[in-house]
């Protein structure tokens, strides 16, 4: 089976600065690839290549065997769910309008949009009757992020991108949402690419972990194998775990 996403020798430069260096990897249908890395390692940049927010300077990113540069960007983005740390909900839209956005843009009939919104909000644990009419400012950080996830799932996209979605949440809420992520993944069987700098999160959520360091992929392995990794960059991340155990 051909991969859902494939990076082929992707480099990305801004001026003299190279943010991604000769990146090559594949993501298979149904798996969750976690891109782990420190700030500035290029993980967010790599993610933005996939829905065409950025274009590679050289090499190509294939989505369903077609280079992102050949896709109609609007089509590509509407079939790719995207969740970011700042959530980016529209402050002037209600919760239900935010969630129903892509289905509406896709021209679904209003009753279908409503039914879909209702189902999604229930799925992320926000009862429609209670939350549909609220504005984002009337929600807690965790609730906002749930709405962000529901919005990304709205048009049932086969591919989901997550950019440190739980990074700004308190640890308890973060754990709740990580559990929900695992439950959703089990139920929906979608392909997901998840960016984080939290090695625990990577180990819990990823079916494979790709470690990025200064724009290069230094390690790509399933969690169990990643725990035994011997590269200095991987060891630096694993040391965070030991320190937490000791503490």
């Amino acid at each position: 089976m051909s991969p859902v996403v494939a990076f082929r020798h992707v480099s990305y430069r801004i001026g003299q600065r190279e943010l991604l260096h000769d990146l090559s990897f594949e993501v298979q249908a149904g798996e969750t690839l976690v891109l782990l890395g420190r700030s500035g390692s290029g993980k967010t940049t790599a993610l933005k290549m996939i829905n065409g927010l950025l274009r590679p300077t050289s090499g190509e990113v294939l989505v369903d065997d077609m280079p992102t540069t050949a896709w109609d960007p609007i089509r590509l983005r509407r079939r790719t769910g995207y969740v970011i740390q700042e959530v980016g909900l529209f402050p002037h839209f209600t919760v239900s309008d935010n969630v129903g956005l892509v289905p509406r843009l896709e021209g679904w009939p209003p009753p279908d949009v409503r039914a879909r919104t209702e189902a999604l909000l229930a799925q992320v644990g926000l009862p429609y009757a209670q939350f549909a009419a609220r504005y984002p400012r009337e929600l807690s950080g965790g609730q906002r992020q749930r709405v962000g996830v529901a919005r990304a799932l709205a048009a049932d996209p086969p591919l989901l991108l997550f950019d440190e979605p739980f990074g700004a949440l308190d640890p308890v809420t973060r754990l709740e949402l990580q559990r929900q992520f695992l439950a959703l993944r089990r139920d929906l069987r979608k392909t997901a690419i998840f960016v984080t700098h939290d090695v625990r999160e990577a180990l819990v959520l990823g079916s494979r972990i790709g470690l990025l360091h200064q724009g290069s992929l230094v390690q790509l392995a399933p969690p169990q194998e990643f725990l035994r990794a011997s590269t200095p960059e991987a060891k630096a991340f694993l040391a965070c775990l030991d320190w937490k155990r000791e503490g």
Partner: protein
Amino acid sequence: MPVGLPREILDLTLEHLGMVFVSVFIAATAGIAGGILLTRRPVWQGWLLGFANVMQTVPSLALFGFLIPIPLIGGIGKHTAIIALVLYALLPILRNTLAGIMGVDPAVRESAIAMGMTGRQLLWEVELPLAARTILAGVRVATVTTIGTATIAAAIGGGGLGVFIFRGLASVDTTLILAGAVPAAAIALLADGGLGWAEKKFSPV
């Protein structure tokens, strides 16, 4: 009070209002369109904002004077006055439109694009609604300033409440000056209040 003064106050007030309305309408159309254009073509920002800034710095009486000898757009009369008023009103509207749109949370804009919104959808559904309050604030400032500046239009035959003020100055008649100044101030206050109310009403969040 001379006979017929109330009638003349009414006439000149209406003339004044008409001149302000037309000027602000043109300035708002051009300023908002220009502001949107500048968010799409950032390299032009220096030029267009620079032009509007320079217009703002020219003393108003001088600007009215400068326009008189210019062929086609110049001369004596109402249309020259309106051109000068538009040039003045342009800056606050242009600047606020630009500031309002640029002030939209980058995360909101990025997610709008990532959701697959087209440029037009981004503008009409996200950027303009979120910038509406700032844009209206610019229109409000422009309107209030224009109501005051329009009194100078009388100096180049543009009519309006300035007619009383210049006549009063020439004849050292305080009553006449007040006959122009008081209605102008009242209009400005009303416009400020009304547009302030609209700002709150149209504010989306």
